[in-house]
């Protein structure tokens, strides 16, 4: 009984989200149309409650609540769950404001969104590959539905099908790898696997193959090249709020698992996968940034840019030190705010001009200067320019690689410094295409003279994102300190 209570307490944020989802689903059935308009507000309330529980109830009690079967609870997971909850909340705001979407089955949409948020929180908390598999599939299945939500839209359907096929394929490969791991190590607990791998002198080839197959699934979730192809299609096809959501939240959750798998269960030096991961990171950032250049659709541009960002973040994993892990946490926080903020601007624009083509952003500064300025702020942050949150994240992640290189006798023989150089060059490329958008908005005459107005709630969401982007950029110390201490308690790279 005591155990059950402990479990409930430990999972209270997840349960709050699930509960809200069920209430929304049920309320949708009984409410009238005017009542349904308040469903998003209910969701926001539930998410806020979950955030409060997560941050103020679970966080202080991490050590005592941490001992749950198949689960892993630590300040580290609380950090990621916060990010996911914020992302979900901002997505609800976007959904509420997106024209042509908020009227269609609001109960189903919102409950699915909340279900997936809960799934991501479970994924973050997984200590067992069983939980990893289950919650990844959970997120995946809901994401396919959300992308294909407007089912009579050909693009949405196509995006969903592609997403689905690649996702199912990747997870089939991943689960096969998991089966091999189970056979080799006799367990699928991440903590336990780390202990066994640490003990074993020489690791068999099959283990590496199994880890490789496992990372296919993770790579898919994170949209690492070559498992990235679903992301642009799903983002362009899906509704804008969903695009915003799937470009941020699943990645945050996937990163939490990735850090634990490559930090705790299979440290990169034990399984000699640093080289392969470096190649993947390099390919991811380069491909993402280069492909972003010719895009004409803003959502697709942001999709490729988010692929590029994952490439940068992987550097933190490869660096395999605490600075890197903490840097990833900060990066994720920054990324949540700046990417969702950018999408909020996209929603504001598409509501008015009904287009997501970059050419239609011409002269936006004259049609609505605040939106244009905010979008520029988010683009600056995405481009990693100070004084924005994006700069801090990049700085920490790149710094971790430099730190890792400095610990070596011959820094240039390791991939670290080369990765950093490549990443910096990539950032320059990325500034080019971000600025192209800014150029359209500020230095091009508008096609129509009408203004673009936003609504109060959207301003609230964008304002929160902008304030956070700037605050983290100007006063980064609290976030950095929190991230570093959250990482300190992990057993990363200790085995």
């Amino acid at each position, binding site marked *: 009984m005591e*155990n059950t209570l402990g479990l409930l307490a430990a999972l209270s944020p997840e349960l709050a989200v699930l509960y809200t989802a069920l209430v929304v689903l049920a309320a949708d059935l009984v409410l009238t149309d005017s009542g349904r308009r308040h469903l998003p507000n209910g969701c926001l309330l539930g998410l806020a409650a979950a955030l409060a529980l997560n941050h103020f109830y679970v966080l202080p009690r991490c050590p005592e609540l941490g*001992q*749950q*079967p*198949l689960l892993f609870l630590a300040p580290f997971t609380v950090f990621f769950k916060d990010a996911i909850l914020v992302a979900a909340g901002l997505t609800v705001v976007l959904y509420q404001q997106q024209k042509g979407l908020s009227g269609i089955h609001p109960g189903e949409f919102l409950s699915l969104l909340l279900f997936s948020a809960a799934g991501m929180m479970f994924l973050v908390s997984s200590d067992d*590959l*069983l939980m990893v*598999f*289950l919650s990844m*599939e959970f997120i*995946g*299945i809901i994401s*396919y*539905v959300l992308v*294909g939500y407007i*089912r*009579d839209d*050909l*693009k949405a*359907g*196509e*995006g*969903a*099908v*592609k997403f*689905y*096929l690649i996702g*199912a*394929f990747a997870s*089939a*490969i991943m*689960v*096969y790898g*998991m*089966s*091999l791991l*189970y*056979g080799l190590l*006799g*367990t*699928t*607990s991440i903590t*336990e696997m780390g202990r066994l791998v640490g003990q074993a002198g020489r690791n068999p080839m099959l283990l590496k193959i199994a880890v490789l197959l496992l990372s296919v699934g993770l790579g898919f979730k994170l949209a690492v090249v070559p498992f990235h192809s679903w992301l*642009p*299609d799903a983002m*362009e*096809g899906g509704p804008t709020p969903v695009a915003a959501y799937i470009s941020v939240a699943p990645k945050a959750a996937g990163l939490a698992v990735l850090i634990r798998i490559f930090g705790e269960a299979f440290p990169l030096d034990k399984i000699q996968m640093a080289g392969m991961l470096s190649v993947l990171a390099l390919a991811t950032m380069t491909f993402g940034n280069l*492909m972003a250049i*010719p895009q004409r659709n803003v959502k697709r541009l942001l999709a490729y840019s988010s692929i590029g960002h994952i490439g940068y973040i992987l550097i933190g994993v490869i660096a395999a030190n605490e600075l890197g892990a903490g840097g990833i946490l900060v990066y994720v926080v920054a990324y949540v705010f700046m990417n969702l903020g950018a999408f909020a601007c996209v929603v504001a624009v598409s509501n008015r001009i009904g287009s997501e083509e970059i050419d239609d952003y011409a002269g936006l500064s004259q049609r609505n200067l605040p939106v244009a300025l905010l979008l520029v702020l988010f683009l600056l942050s995405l481009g990693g320019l100070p004084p924005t949150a994006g700069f801090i994240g990049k700085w920490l992640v790149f710094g971790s690689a430099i730190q890792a290189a400095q610990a070596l006798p011959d820094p240039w023989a390791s991939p670290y410094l080369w990765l950093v150089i490549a990443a910096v060059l990539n950032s320059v490329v990325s500034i080019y295409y971000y600025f192209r958008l800014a150029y359209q908005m500020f230095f091009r005459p508008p096609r129509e003279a009408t203004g673009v107005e936003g609504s109060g709630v959207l301003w609230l969401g964008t304002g929160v994102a902008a304030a956070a982007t700037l605050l983290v950029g100007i006063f980064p110390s609290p976030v950095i300190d929190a991230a570093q201490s959250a990482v300190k308690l992990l057993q990363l790279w200790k085995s």
Partner: protein
Amino acid sequence: MVTLNHYLLLGAAMFAIGIYGVLTRRNILGILISLELMFNAAMVNFAAFNAFTPDGKPRVMPFQGQALPELHGQVFALFIILVAAAEAVVGLALVLAIYRNLKSIYVEHLNLLKW
């Protein structure tokens, strides 16, 4: 004598054949069916690993101080069945939605979204 390796090779063969199907079928349904093969390969592996334990001792997974789930592999396989079923349901519904709009379920007809 049937050893563990026999079961594992059987699983590997299913897995490879499933991949072949996924890569070559033009019909989305064909791909879905092949995917089931891949999931089944993993299930065979789990069941086999679960059956062959080292030294006859039950597999131990630590949690709450208990050393219980000697059937972890089977439980895992059970969840795979469940997930695969749920995934298939959503996939089939998606196929129907696509079919209704496009009147085709051949993957290469899904080519609105590219680079």
